[in-house]
């Protein structure tokens, strides 16, 4: 029997972590105790930044990471965080399907075997200012944490501001940050209504967390066990996508219940965002080469 430690970055209450625990339970049952996974949530074993390398190198046999956090390594990992490319669950799932073979091949090269990936609820705009079009966002101090966000800030003529998660509440309260794009889940988790008034449900993108296993550890399992785990992963993936969608509306309700104005984007804002999305998709394609072009073509065809 194998005992696997599974580091996960998000807090124990987060639905990704809960699903991870459920997955661990399923694997234990379905493999008849052949593989027993211990989930370590909230970065209590390895921190988010460390998890991919830990699994790649076998210091942890299995783990979870936000795909777009790896954007610096390969444009492929930035795909699901391109603003306004896939803006609802159906499209996000299509994009996932279109990119999955490339993603699997990319991870395989780094000694990783992809098990499943589940989307976060869609990203919306948080701001104290009323935003009716992209012009209203000009000059706002906007939270950025990677190159894509910095580019978005540039296109919207906002002031990029880096704030680490731990300092976010305070930064919002004191005006160090005036606008950010993140999911309803994060908004509820960090109770942003204490600092921010408006949420615009622009559904900018649906980033995914992926769970992968060390290739060598995976190859060491017999075919029957592998099959059982693959089946469990597929089941948890379906459940996770449904759960994410269900939670998404719940999160928005929670934001509204706590006094935030939760609104659909105005027509002007929506069309501004679509224009920016087209531009950023084209830029991504240029950077991602033929594989990238093929994925986008496949996605558009679906």
């Amino acid at each position: 029997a194998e005992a696997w430690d599974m580091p996960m970055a998000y807090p124990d209450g987060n639905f990704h972590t809960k699903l991870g625990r459920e997955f661990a339970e399923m694997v234990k049952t379905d493999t008849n105790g052949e593989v027993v996974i211990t989930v370590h949530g909230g970065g209590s074993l390895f921190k988010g930044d460390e998890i991919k390398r830990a699994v790649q190198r076998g210091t942890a046999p299995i783990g979870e990471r936000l795909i777009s956090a790896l954007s610096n390594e390969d444009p492929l990992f930035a795909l699901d965080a391109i603003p306004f490319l896939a803006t609802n669950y159906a499209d996000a799932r299509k994009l996932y399907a279109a990119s999955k073979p490339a993603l699997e091949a990319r991870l395989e090269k780094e000694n990783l075997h992809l098990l499943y990936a589940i989307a976060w609820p869609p990203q919306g705009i948080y701001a104290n200012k009323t935003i009716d079009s992209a012009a209203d966002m000009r000059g706002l101090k906007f939270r950025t944490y990677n190159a894509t966000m910095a580019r978005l800030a540039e296109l919207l003529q906002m002031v990029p501001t880096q704030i680490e998660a731990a300092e976010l509440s305070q930064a919002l309260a004191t005006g160090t940050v005036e606008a950010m794009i993140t999911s309803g889940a994060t908004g509820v988790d960090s109770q942003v209504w204490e600092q921010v008034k408006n949420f615009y449900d622009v559904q900018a993108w649906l980033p995914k967390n992926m769970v992968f296993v060390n290739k060598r550890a995976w190859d060491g399992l017999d075919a029957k066990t592998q099959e059982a785990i693959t089946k469990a992963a597929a089941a948890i993936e379906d459940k996770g996508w449904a759960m994410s969608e269900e939670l998404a509306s719940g999160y928005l309700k929670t934001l509204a219940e706590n006094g935030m104005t939760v609104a659909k984007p105005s027509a002007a804002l929506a069309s501004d965002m679509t224009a920016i999305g087209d531009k950023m998709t084209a830029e991504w394609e240029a950077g991602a080469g033929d594989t990238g072009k093929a994925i986008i073509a496949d996605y558009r065809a679906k």
Partner: protein
Amino acid sequence: MAISRLLDRVYDAAGVLAGIAMIAIVLIILAQVGARLLAYPLRGGAQFAGYAMAAASFLALPHAFRRHAHIRITILLQALPPRPRLVLDLAGLAVGTVIAAWFAWWAYDLAYISWEIGEVSQGDVAVAMWIPQIAMVVGTALFAVALCHTLIETALTGHGFAPEGDGVLDAAADR
């Protein structure tokens, strides 16, 4: 001994680099705040401040060690008569050398693997991780050397490495 003096110079030089890294943390943070006030898009501040802090911590290890800045518990050492005390001091230095050398080896391995697999940072700016990790390799290696150096020195001279009172309380008495 000439070699001992030379080594101490090397530790102090690394210590000065650590000091420069400390100044760099302040400058990076001020630049980040200033850029934000002026709406100038400056990126990677948090990341580079973190790397500078790692450099400040690791590069100072041997210098701080030789100046008795690192903490150890000396109750047992002080309770023993001179002879067994020297033996325990040497044993402590030997075990310390082994742990520090082990630490240094894996620090090297970390940076080497980072280079080999081409690991880049997941932060705001893409940085090849082996570059900031050099500070950890150099600092921990010199730390292991400093421990070994002190072990040999103590064995040769027979004078223990237990610290004399050099805290602020003693300094205050003759201020």
